[in-house]
């Protein structure tokens, strides 16, 4: 049965098919081809390494109070000086990386899972399901993310777990709307009709056909979201409802340090610079990933 047809059917010409290459290698090649993406990657890699190896990298324990050395200027002993309780600023920044990362990934993971699934269900089933879910998301969107996070954090109290929860909820609407829009657009394509004509069921259709097509957008929004969460966390900590002292958190450090901005600028500026670099890193990585992962941009980038 197999080869009889091939003998009589003229095989396709060679020139019709582009050469195959490993998908993974191609993604890596495209991603690292963009300078900014590489910069972003380096920054984030640096961040992750710092967070993991904090105990080995930091010169001092972050919470060690030394009342003899309060508000010291940057010196050989304390590269960024000390804060008002004599704690080494550099060490607190290094340990703060941990806090930021945990909260960033935790909150983003939560909002991605919740938001994407909601958006997908709404777009796929349409009708009343769509209306109910999207009106709920609209209501959520009407309140600024920071405000939602603030309210939740205030109600639940501070602390890392609650901050993750609060920020996760705050970001749900972004992901839900994005996924919904992507899924609605993907649904129009011929290959969805083809898949249904081949007898594919709902669940498979959603996760095998629609999600992979929405994936590039998802990656970009999630990566940029990571940066936004870090900023938001900084805001919460600054306002006192974020990570509870004495745990080091960049936002909290700014909050504590801005009073001394004229005498000891390093106290407030160094966490600020750290936040800036990390958010920049995530944004650049997000761009690079989108370009590398989107099959439709292949050959253009």
């Amino acid at each position: 049965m197999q080869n009889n047809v091939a003998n009589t059917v003229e095989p396709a010409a060679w020139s019709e098919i582009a050469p195959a290459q490993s998908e993974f290698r191609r993604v890596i090649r495209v991603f690292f081809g963009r300078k900014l993406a590489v910069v972003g990657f380096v920054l984030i890699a640096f961040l992750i390494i710092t967070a993991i190896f904090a105990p080995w990298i930091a010169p001092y324990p972050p919470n060690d109070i030394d009342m003899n050395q309060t508000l010291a200027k940057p010196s050989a002993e304390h590269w960024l000086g000390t804060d008002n309780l004599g704690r080494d600023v550099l060490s607190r920044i290094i340990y703060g990386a941990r806090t930021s990362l945990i909260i960033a990934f935790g909150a983003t993971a939560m909002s991605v899972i919740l938001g994407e699934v909601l958006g997908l269900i709404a777009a796929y089933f349409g009708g009343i399901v769509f209306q109910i879910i999207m009106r709920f998301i609209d209501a959520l969107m009407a309140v600024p993310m920071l405000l939602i996070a603030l309210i939740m954090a205030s109600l639940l109290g501070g602390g890392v777990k609650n901050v993750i929860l609060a920020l996760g909820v705050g970001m749900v609407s972004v992901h839900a709307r994005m996924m919904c829009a992507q899924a609605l657009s993907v649904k129009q394509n011929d290959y969805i009709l083809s898949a249904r004509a081949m007898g594919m069921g709902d669940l498979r259709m959603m996760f095998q056909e629609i999600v992979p097509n929405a994936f590039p957008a998802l990656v970009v929004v999630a990566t940029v979201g990571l940066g936004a969460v870090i900023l938001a966390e900084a805001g919460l900590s600054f306002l006192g409802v974020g990570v509870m002292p004495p745990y080091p958190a960049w936002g909290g450090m700014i909050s504590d340090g801005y009073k001394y901005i004229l005498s000891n600028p390093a106290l407030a500026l160094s966490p600020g610079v750290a936040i800036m670099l990390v958010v920049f890193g995530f944004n650049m990585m997000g761009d690079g990933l989108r370009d590398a992962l989107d099959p439709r941009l292949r050959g253009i980038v």
Partner: protein
Amino acid sequence: MAVLLNVENLRTYFQTDRGLVKAVDGVSFYINEKEIIGLVGESGCGKSVSMLSVMQLISVPPGQIVSGSAIFDGQDLLQYKSKGEEMSSIRGAKIAMIFQEPMTSLNPVLTIGRQTTEMLELHLNMDSQTAKERAVELLNSVGIPEAESRLDSYPHQFSGGMRQRVMIAIALSCNPKILIADEPTTAVDVTTQAQLLELMQEIVNQYNTSLIIVTHNLGVVARYAQRIYVMYAGRIVESGLCEDIFLNPLHPYTIGLLKCVPQLGETKGDRELVPISGLPPNLINMPNNCAFLPRCSYHTEKCRLEPWPELHSTGEQHYVSCYVDTQETL
């Protein structure tokens, strides 16, 4: 020869803002085993919608299958729920459909291999190794060279003709009894057209699959189809054996279609190509009488007064829906 699919009196209407569109208004056709039939008509005549209705792929608001039956394997397909188990197990496995645009019919983010094995795993419960081997067999059989290494390629690495071949391979993967090809060659060049049609012919012969070709191109069905149905404005206006339709067309529409197509062997000046005057009708608020009337050069008073004629037989398997005996008028 056993009848595989028997569609009777299919009516599919669409409720739109501007009125009720009777896209398919009383279509009946059948297909036997190992047969190729052609469903011919211009854009908008309802041929694609008829096929989609049989497969229950019509979006239910605004569309609705108002009446009719589609008996396949002893069961009426139109009685099944469109999202139900039964319909899902028939689609792809027993009746497969391929569409016009090869560029968009394949999911751009999944590899060719994945899309082929998907079907096998879905309907035949194959494990991934067996499915991969079968996929390679299938791709080879539709003429894709070095199929094994092509499994990891993406659709955008293939040309239109190749993608259509892949679509055919996917459609055939579960050995369906009927393959519906909706304008399969419209989007490709003539050389590829010829290759694809030859491929489909081989498939009918080798795999015992029946083929329904939906097209607006008479040339495509002339060579390959055994029987032809001509559709106009949602109804079948003529049907019969291929030779009868081409050598002895009876309906003014069919006659008009053949008059405006050049034939091989004619030279310039032999015959004038006469297009059919007028435009296809708006399917909203159709008049009760014959829909072809405004464009017909054979019409009589009877055509204006009587409702759209029923199909009546004029000889061996040749049916026409017309009050005028066009043979006499010639």
